[in-house]
């Protein structure tokens, strides 16, 4: 699964996700990617794209949950994203997210996640494993 989230200079947020699904999936199986709020979500606070086991991502509505924790509990993007990832059994998924203020979070509970990010302030990261 591939995905991208961004906030532009005018503070617009957007999220996009695309996938082939899972190896050996049943024909006709729908995963999390096209289910808005499961693996993809964006509002005025943040944008989220998830990757991993679609059924787990749907059950936990992970993308919308990140936004809801920010909206209703006042959590930062990082705290909200890490809270959601910690609430799903290990080995299931990861996500990338940006907030309207330009904060980035890329937590995962799998062994690794291919990921990259950059900010206007000059921060940049490309990695696979947690300690990259």
């Amino acid at each position: 699964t591939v995905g991208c989230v961004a906030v532009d200079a005018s503070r617009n947020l957007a999220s996009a996700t695309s996938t082939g699904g899972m190896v050996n999936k049943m024909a006709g199986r729908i995963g999390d990617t096209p289910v808005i709020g499961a693996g993809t979500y964006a509002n005025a606070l943040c944008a989220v794209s998830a990757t991993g086991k679609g059924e787990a991502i749907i059950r936990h509505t992970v993308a919308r949950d990140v936004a809801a924790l920010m909206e209703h509990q006042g959590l930062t993007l990082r705290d909200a994203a890490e809270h959601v990832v910690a609430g799903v059994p290990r080995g299931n998924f990861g996500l990338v997210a940006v907030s309207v203020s330009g904060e980035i979070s890329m937590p995962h509970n799998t062994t690794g996640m291919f990921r990259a990010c950059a900010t206007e302030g000059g921060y940049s990261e490309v990695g696979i494993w947690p300690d990259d």
Partner: protein
Amino acid sequence: MGWAIALHGGAGDIPRSLPPERREPRLATLRRCLDLGVAALQAGRTALDVVELVVRELENCPHFNAGRGSVLTTDGTVEMEASIMDGTTMGCGAVSGVSTVVNAISLARLVMDKTPHIYLAFQGAEAFARDQGVETVDPSHFITEENIDRLRQAKQANRVQIDYTQPMEGQPPKDDNSRTG
């Protein structure tokens, strides 16, 4: 804090022993797509345009599980899915079950922009793609030798696998959730 961008190319049980010839092409594509997105943001493109642009590039890379390089169903076919959402308007579009559309993410964008709906699937999504004149190809375009081999291994192990997860030999226990996802 200005603009910011983040992207992913899939998660799973990625071994630290992943050989360089499998690791480096993916990292190089991530760097290239990141640079593409950064340049677009610096040029004043909207976040919505940028995420579509970047995901199109990732779809075109056969090393990732989307577009060309999509993994296979148990029937050996490709059924791709994509979605896009605009946080400013809460507009969104999604497609699933597409097998001929080169860039499913752009078809999802068209669902958002050109229809009163959010989600089109299978024959309806394919018909909409043709109505809109988006690029389509024979489904074989998306199938790689590596993914044919992965499907064979997954069938042998009777497993459904997420991105990068290595196949396990033998039958899984009956209560193994991953067998059905």
